[in-house]
């Protein structure tokens, strides 16, 4: 009941004309930028960070909530109308969505995606209201050793569960952790890895890292391999659905939501796994399995709902623990840190109005999105035809502006270019980007909690072990790390049994 009151206060904070205008601006700009090819939700948020610099944190959060869901929705429009999606989370949407579009059912694909996103987003946000305060209650009792162990779970989760090569994931994580320790040590005041450069003494700003890796890195990567014949855009009218489309969509929406939310809340790769699971479930349960692969509406409805529900799920660990489980959440945390707000279990106690205003604006943004996107889809589709030189020049332009505005020093622009080249190399060699960003964001926190735990034990390593919560956490870490070896051994024993 208490939460409901808080939420109502949150709505009260958001429902002012100025804040509603900000929410509308957020969803419009978020969708517009998200629709642009090559720009996914994470990059949308990174590029739009500077808009919020001059604002009050609450207003910034209202804007972000809109950008967050808007960017997600924009990404799925691109994958339905263009087919080659940039986000791993919209890959599944593209399978059936683009087939539907080619068969002249683009309007229905966009409609089921918009309405499914709305339903999943709304249910997901309600679940945040229910679950998040409980997680905070649990988290607030955690000591430094437990918190340290949970951060290690996040590190292992984003590196080992996601992507195809753990080795490459760990390489990315280590580079991110190394970036995070650049600057003055918070306890002793010693300079680390600053090479005597005064601008590095305060550390490397997370926003600069995020913009460099996501925006500049991506723009450089695309520039090096620019498709000279632009991909074909499928024209679309006003999205709508017939009676049979509704009948075939509503169950996949709900099932997708159920699959998506929990996966978003754990550090296991955000929307990648639940969208695939949802697709497979719908294929199995469908009365029209023969349509799968040729444009089945269930194959759009389910994964799209799963995608949005998992986005909502990521906000639980982000708000309750300060742990990012996907790239977009990572950048939103970076934005919070930019306001001098320390994310973590105390966030809800220290900044209750901010948190509840954010949640309230998620509801509002989600509704605005539905109202806005059904009529505006044809206009969004036009954005796909923007000439590529202008598009990528624009990305570099906004990236430079955002990175400069953080500290107003040209040094950051050189840093941005260096990080952009790092992002380029990572894309070239198939190193995943998420572990790096998570490493940068959580590196200092991991070190601080680790050192605090050792301080309690007087330097004895047993101090890291802590209580039952950290034992479970370490158990999870070991299990995730050992799993492939275990799986291999299992397969081998089974094979030898079969041979015998």
């Amino acid at each position: 009941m208490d939460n409901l009151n808080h939420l109502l206060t949150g709505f009260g904070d958001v429902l002012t004309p100025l804040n509603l205008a900000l929410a509308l601006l957020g969803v419009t700009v978020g969708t517009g930028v998200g629709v642009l090819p090559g720009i996914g939700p994470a990059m949308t948020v990174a590029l739009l960070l500077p808009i919020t610099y001059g604002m009050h944190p609450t207003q910034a959060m209202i804007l972000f909530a809109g950008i967050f869901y808007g960017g997600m929705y924009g990404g799925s429009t691109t994958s339905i109308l263009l087919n080659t999606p940039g986000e791993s989370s919209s890959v599944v949407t593209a399978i059936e969505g683009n087939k539907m579009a080619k068969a002249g059912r683009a309007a229905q694909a966009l409609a089921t995606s918009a309405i499914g996103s709305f339903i999943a987003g709304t249910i997901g946000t309600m679940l945040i209201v229910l679950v998040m305060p409980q997680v905070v209650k649990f988290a607030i009792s955690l000591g430094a050793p437990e918190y340290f162990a949970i951060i290690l779970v996040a590190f292992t989760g984003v590196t080992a569960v996601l992507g195809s090569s753990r080795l490459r994931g760990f390489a990315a994580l280590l580079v991110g952790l190394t970036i995070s320790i650049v600057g003055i040590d918070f306890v002793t005041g010693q300079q680390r890895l600053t090479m005597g450069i005064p601008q590095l003494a305060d550390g490397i700003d997370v926003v600069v890292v995020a913009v460099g890796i996501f925006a500049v890195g991506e723009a450089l990567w695309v520039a090096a391999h620019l498709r000279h014949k632009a991909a074909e855009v499928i024209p679309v009218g006003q999205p709508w659905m017939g009676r049979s489309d509704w009948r075939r969509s509503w169950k996949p929406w709900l099932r997708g939501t159920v699959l998506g939310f929990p996966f978003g809340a754990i550090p296991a790769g955000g929307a990648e796994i639940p969208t695939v699971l949802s697709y497979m479930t719908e294929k199995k349960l469908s009365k029209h399995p023969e349509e799968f692969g040729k444009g089945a509406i269930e194959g759009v409805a389910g994964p799209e709902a799963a995608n949005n529900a998992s986005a909502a799920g990521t906000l639980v660990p982000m708000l309750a623990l300060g742990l990012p489980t996907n790239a977009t959440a990572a950048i939103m945390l970076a934005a919070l840190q930019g306001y001098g707000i320390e994310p973590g279990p105390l966030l809800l106690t220290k900044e209750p109005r901010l948190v509840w205003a954010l949640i309230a604006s998620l509801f509002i943004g989600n509704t605005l999105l539905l109202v806005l996107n059904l009529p505006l889809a044809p206009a969004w589709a036009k954005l796909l035809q923007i000439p590529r030189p202008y598009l990528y020049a624009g990305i570099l332009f906004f990236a430079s502006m955002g990175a400069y505005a953080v500290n107003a020093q040209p040094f950051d622009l050189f840093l941005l270019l260096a990080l952009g080249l790092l992002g380029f190399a990572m894309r070239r060699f198939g190193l995943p980007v998420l572990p790096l960003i998570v490493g940068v964001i959580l590196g200092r926190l991991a070190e601080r909690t680790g050192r605090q735990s050792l301080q309690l034990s007087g330097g004895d390593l047993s101090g890291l072990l802590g209580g039952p919560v950290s034992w479970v956490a370490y158990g999870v870490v070991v299990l995730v790390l050992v799993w492939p070896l275990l799986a291999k051994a299992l397969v081998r024993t089974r094979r030898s049994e079969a041979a015998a």
Partner: protein
Amino acid sequence: MTDHRPSVMTGVRDRAQFGLCTALGLLGVFVLVDASRIGAASSSNDPIGPRPVPILLGVLLVVVAVLYAVDVARGGRGEEEAGEDVDLSTRADWKTIVMLAAAFVLNALLIQPLGWVISGSVLFWGSAFALGNRHHLRGLAIGIALSLATFYAFAIGLGVNLPAGILQGIL
């Protein structure tokens, strides 16, 4: 996708990956050297001090670099990232990258003396040119329009730090 097919079958192995391993290893060595320079500043309220973390990271970086090199030598290959506008069948276009980096550096050098409106326009026009835009006037016009719009909206409207430079007083 780590691909363990022997290199004989795939023909060319992606040797550039060894460069990345070397870079990771060098980064690890650099972190270790830097850590050795830090004074042992441990105290009773911080028994481990600022050194162990960089030492741990340095060692892990070197270990991962070696394992990575082993993986590459056995034919492992990282999957290049695909995307809407990415055509992986072509070779990397280094000329574009160099031109983009030049436009970027130019912006970094010019932003304080000349101001964002000028340096931003140059950045936009230069990047669009590097990416194949040959409508110079249109590119420049869009660049100027964007920098003016962002300057007024962000620097003046929202108080974001963007320098006016030599146009101070005119804008």
